[in-house]
């Protein structure tokens, strides 16, 4: 699915620079569910953003679904983001003046899908996250868990190969977190490849593989026995 080789990333801070990723090697296969862990500031988000083509690496090789990601024009990058990737953010990142349905339909709009078709498809995905009855509500009328479900539906709408989630449960209480995790596990069961950043052990243990970052390198990469979230719901 994706292959990363000796990836480096620094942020300029004043005159000096902060070396955040110091040579990451990572391979993720189709159907995997990977948790990226590490203490705060260890570079988890930075790595995920580069994988998601929201940011660029300084050095190293990154191949996504057989395509080398390097020096892409913004136009090409837009197409790849739309086709390959679905994002779930800690802060949901819904557009506040659009209804749940319109938010979910937005990636389909950028695919050039007809309005009727994309609204039907968006409703299908909202149904899947159990929010069909909330389709015409604005984000501010939804709870945190509901917002994250809308965000998941939106990430799924364009049927991406890879789902990227940065602390998807970070802004949610425990019960809601497990709810969301149960749903993400279900997606993985259906075959979706999932990459998730978290700093919570219990959430990480609901994945199938844990990658630990420290000081800009991978210090541990192991398969784990998946804890099913349904049992806590």
């Amino acid at each position, binding site marked *: 699915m994706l292959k990363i080789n000796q990836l480096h990333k620094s942020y300029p801070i004043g005159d000096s620079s902060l070396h955040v990723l110091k040579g990451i090697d990572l391979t993720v296969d189709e159907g995997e569910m990977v948790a990226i862990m590490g203490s705060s500031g260890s570079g988890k988000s930075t790595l995920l*953003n580069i994988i*998601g083509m*929201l*940011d*660029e690496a300084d050095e190293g090789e990154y191949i996504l679904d057989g395509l080398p990601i390097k020096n892409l024009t*913004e*136009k090409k990058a*837009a*197409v790849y*983001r*739309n*086709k390959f990737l679905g*994002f779930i*953010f800690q802060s949901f*990142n*819904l*557009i506040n*003046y*659009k209804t749940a349905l*319109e938010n979910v339909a*937005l*990636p389909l*709009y*950028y*695919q050039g899908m007809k*309005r009727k078709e994309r609204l039907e498809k968006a409703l299908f995905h909202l149904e899947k996250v159990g929010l069909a009855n909330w389709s015409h509500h604005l984000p501010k009328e939804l709870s945190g868990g509901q917002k994250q479900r809308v965000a998941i539906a*939106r990430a799924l709408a*364009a049927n991406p190969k890879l789902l990227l989630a940065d602390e998807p449960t970070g802004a949610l209480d425990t019960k809601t977190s497990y709810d969301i995790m149960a749903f993400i596990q279900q997606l993985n069961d259906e075959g979706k490849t999932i990459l998730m950043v978290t700093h919570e052990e219990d959430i990480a243990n609901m994945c199938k593989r844990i990658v630990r970052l420290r000081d800009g390198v991978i210090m541990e990469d192991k398969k784990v026995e998946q804890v099913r979230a349904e049992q806590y719901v």
Partner: protein
Amino acid sequence: MFDLDLWREIFQSINKNRTRSLLSGFTVAFAILLFAILFGIANGLKNTFKEAFGTDANNSIIVYPGRTTKANNGLQAGRQIQFKNEDEQFVLDEFGEKVQYITSKVNRSVTASFKGEKNNYELRAVQPDYMFIENNKVSDGRYINQNDLDNRTKVAIIGRIVNDDLFLKESAIGKYINLSGIPYKVVGVFTDDEGDNEERVIYIPITTAQFVYGNNDYIDLLHLTYNPDMNVDEALSFGSLLTKKLKDRFSVANSDQRAIRVQNMAQGMKQVDIMTFSLTVIILVIGLGTLIAGIVGISNIMIFIVKERTKEIGIRKALGASPKSIVSIILIESVLITTIAGYVGLLVGVGVLEIAGPSLETYFIKDPGVSNSLVFGATFTLIIAGAIAGYLPAKKASQIKPIVALRND
């Protein structure tokens, strides 16, 4: 290509972000409103100014003879210059194509009476051209004609006020009016837009006056209009040349200011031109100032809007929006708001001028108004400015990495 979905996105964004839309729209509408009103008022001032110069032909030249103040060519100072019919002919021979209309004139004051009514009026003995020089309108009957001149007919054309004073409710045409003892047949009544004093006047043929008042061919003054194709400077030099030729003709010293006086309206026109030009400059400065203020306002708002939407742009990019689609959504929105708001400002501005216009006449503002093309031009300028002002930050925003845009809170 008409992209319905794009327009739907734009209308939603305008509609759902009403404060933002109204705020930017208000700036544009206000700039155009101000532009229209200021321009209209300045135009009103200009109109007042123009009107103050009367409705007489404003290309007229009056030549008066007087007494010499300087000895010249062996002739003493204090000599009275007297114009005669041949002097009018002289002017025509010398300056034929430069003269539009010309009349010789004899002025008297008369006591006019009809039946029991009696009053004093100004009597002007003139030629037919005088009608055009004074911009008279014949409201009843006719004006003086060539036949009157040839036959020295005793006819009178009376001003509207004279008619009202003496003839009360009767029609004056065909009646005989007594002018200082001599009866004249009234053949016409005229009006003059310039005011009542110009209608307290009686015209008779100049040949008749010359016969009645001394059986000579004397004239009191020459009144002519210069060819309107001439510009102000040409008219001024024509006036000087005319003066010079007449002074030579009457052996008057060139430096003698009293013997032959020429009153050239072109002199006034020159001043009017200068005034009008100054007013135009003031108007342009005002207009430009308003426009620049509007442009600066729009630019600020566009920068603010793009900043406010940075996070949204980040989200859209993460979902696969191309830079082009980001630019067009922001740009079309700004152009749309500017256009609508500009049109509203235009309508309100023109409406205000229309409604308040008549009551402004006391403040020397007459018929304030702006040409449509001018306001459209101003609105168009603002639209273009808004588009440029929106394009640059939108372009920049569309180019930043999505993660940077998303971090914006």
